[in-house]
C-alpha cells in the first residue's frame, strides 16, 4: 500500500464528502480558524511593524519579541492554554497568533525601514503628512515584502491549525488525529493531503493578491 493509494481511497469514498465530518465541513472550519488567526496576527503585527518601521526605532525590541514568539512551542502553548481557560476557540487561537505574529511583525518593520529614503524625503519636503507618507509612499513600495510576511504567517497557521483537533474542535486536523487513534491511515494521509493542498492554495491566493495590489512600477523594480 503506498501513499497515493491512501489518497485515492480517501477522496473517492463518497462518505467523506458529506455530513459533519465531511471534507467540505472540515475544510470550511479549518479555513475559518486560519482566517481568524491571521486577522488577529495581522491586527497586532502590521500596525506595530509599520509604525516602528516608519520611525526606524524599536528594531531590537521587535527582534527580541519575534525570537521569543518563535521559540514558544505551539503544541505546549495549546495544552497550557486549554488547562488555563478550558476547551474552545481561545486556547487554539493563542498559539496560532503567537506563531504568525513574528514573521508579520519583522517583515513589515524591515520592509518599511528599508524603503529608499529619497522619495520619503521628497514627500516630506513637499508637505505630506507623516501618515500619508507611511500609507502613500512607504506602504506601496514595501507591500511585496509585507505580503510575504503575511504569507509565511498564513502558511504556518494553515499547517499548525491541525493541532486544534487535539483539544476537541474541528478542522482538517480531525482526520489526522482521529485517523491516528483509529489506526485509519487512509484518513491520516487524506487529512494531511488536504492540509498541504490548503497551504498551496494559500500561496496561490497571496500570489493573486500581490498581482492585484502591487503597482507595476514596484513589481518590476522589486
Amino acid at each position, binding site marked *: 500500500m503506498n501513499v497515493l493509494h491512501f489518497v485515492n481511497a480517501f477522496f473517492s469514498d463518497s462518505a467523506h464528502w458529506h455530513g459533519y465530518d465531511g471534507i467540505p465541513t472540515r475544510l470550511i472550519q479549518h479555513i475559518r480558524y486560519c482566517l481568524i488567526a491571521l486577522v488577529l496576527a495581522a491586527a497586532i503585527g502590521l500596525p506595530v511593524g509599520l509604525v516602528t518601521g516608519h520611525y526606524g526605532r524599536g528594531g531590537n525590541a521587535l527582534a527580541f519579541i519575534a525570537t521569543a514568539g518563535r521559540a514558544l512551542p505551539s503544541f505546549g502553548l495549546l495544552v497550557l492554554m486549554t488547562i488555563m481557560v478550558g476547551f474552545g476557540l481561545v486556547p487554539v487561537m493563542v498559539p496560532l497568533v503567537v506563531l504568525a505574529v513574528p514573521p508579520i511583525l519583522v517583515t513589515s518593520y524591515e520592509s518599511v525601514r528599508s524603503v*529608499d529614503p*529619497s*522619495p*520619503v*524625503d*521628497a*514627500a*516630506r*519636503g*513637499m*508637505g*505630506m*503628512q507623516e501618515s*500619508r507618507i507611511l500609507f*502613500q*509612499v512607504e506602504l*506601496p*513600495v514595501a507591500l511585496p515584502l509585507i505580503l510575504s510576511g503575511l504569507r509565511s504567517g498564513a502558511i504556518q497557521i494553515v499547517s499548525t491549525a491541525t493541532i486544534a483537533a487535539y483539544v476537541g474542535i474541528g478542522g482538517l486536523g480531525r482526520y489526522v488525529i482521529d485517523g491516528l487513534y483509529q489506526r485509519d491511515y487512509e484518513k491520516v494521509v487524506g487529512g494531511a493531503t488536504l492540509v498541504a493542498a490548503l497551504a498551496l492554495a494559500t500561496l496561490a491566493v497571496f500570489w493573486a493578491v500581490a498581482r492585484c495590489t*502591487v*503597482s*507595476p*512600477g*514596484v513589481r*518590476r*523594480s522589486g
Partner: protein
Amino acid sequence: MAESGQLLPDPKGVRRLIRIDTVTKRYPDGTVAVDRLSLEIPDRSITVLVGPSGCGKTTTLRMINRMVEPSEGSILLDGVDIREQPVNSLRRSMGYVIQNAGLFQHRTIVDNIATVPRLLGWSRSKSRARAMELMERVGLDSALAKRYPYQLSGGQQQRVGVARALAADPPVLLMDEPFSAVDPVVRKGLQDELLRIQDELGKTIVFVTHDIDEAIKLGTTVAVLRTGGRLAQYAPPAELLTAPADAFVEDFLGTDRGIRRLSFFGTEGLELKRAPIVTVDTTAEEVAARTDVDDDVPYLLVTDRDGRPLGWSEPAALAAGPVDVARLLPHGRPFRHGGESLRAALDCAVLSPTGWAVAVDGTGRAVGVVSQQAIGEAIRTAHAERTTGAAGDDGSTGGGALGDADAATGAEVAG
C-alpha cells in the same frame, strides 16, 4: 538696500524675499553645521549655495522649508518668520527637488507630478491636466505620462522631479544638488533647461551644489560657504571670478578662473577678417589675387559653395590647382559670432591647427576668422571696460541675463 535695486517687480505685487537672519545649526553632539549665516535671497532669480562637503549648504537649504530647524536665528519669508505658518503649508508653497529625484516608484509619471496639486485638494483630472502641461514645459514627451519611474533614464527622472516641484506653481523652488547624479552631457542639458524654464517662469530659486562651474553657470548670485558653515563670499558670478574675497574662495574657484571669466564677455566686438575666406570653387588666379591683398594671413579658409567651413589650406597649395578637400587642415570647432563668449572663441583659436578661430553665423556659414592675438586684444579691452565702467554696481548684470553665461551676456558687454 543694495539688492532691492536689481529685483524685477513681481507681477502679482507680492514680494517674497527670503531672508536668512544670523542662523546657526548646532547638532546635539556639538557639531556646528551652519554658523551665524545671514543671506538675503533676491526674488525671481537663482541663488546658488556652493562649497565643499560639510559646509552646511544642504542644511541651510533644508532650514528654508523646515526640514531642519535652526538652533538660533530665524528665516523670514515675505517678512514673516517661517515658523508662523503650519509646516506643511509652508512646504507646499515651495517646490523641492533632490539629488536622485526621489520619485514615487509605484506611481506613474503623471501621478508623480500631480502629487502636490492633489495634496492641495485639486481634483484628479485638474491635477493630471496640470501635470501634462508641466511635462511639456520640462521637455518630456507626453507618451511617458503612463510610464513608471524605472522606465525612465536618470536625466528624464530628474526632469520629472523638476516638473513635480513646479506642479502647484510655487513662488519658491529649493533644489538640493539636483543634477549631480547624472552624467556631464545630461547635466549640461538639464542646466540649460533650468535656465530656459527660469526665463519663462521667474521663480525664486535656491540651488545647492558642490560644483563651482554649475554655480557660475546657473547663479544670478552665488554664496560660497566654507567648512563649518560660514559664508565666505556672496556675489554675482562675474564678481566672484574677478575679485575673490579671500584665499579660500580663490582656491575653490580653481586655477583657471581668468579663463572662465571670459564666459561673461561676448564676441560681438571681435574684429573678424573676411579676406582669408575662399570658396571651394575659387580659381587659382583669384587665390593669387587674394593673398596679395592680405599678406599677414598665412592660411586660407576654404568653404563649400554655401559658405560652410571645410578646412584650412596654404595659399601655395590652392594656387597650384583644384582643391583636394580631403587634404585640407581641419578647422576645428567654430564659434558663433555674437552668440558665444570670448571663452568659446579663445578655445577655438587654441584648438585650431593654424591658431586662427573660425567664426560662423547662426546657420553655420563662416563669417570671418580671428587670430589669438586679436582675441587677446578683445579680452584686454573687455577687462578695461569692466573695471572702469560698472565696477561698483556690477549687480546690474544679475537681472537674469547672466544666467546663460555662454549666450546671453554678450549683448551688454559689447555695448
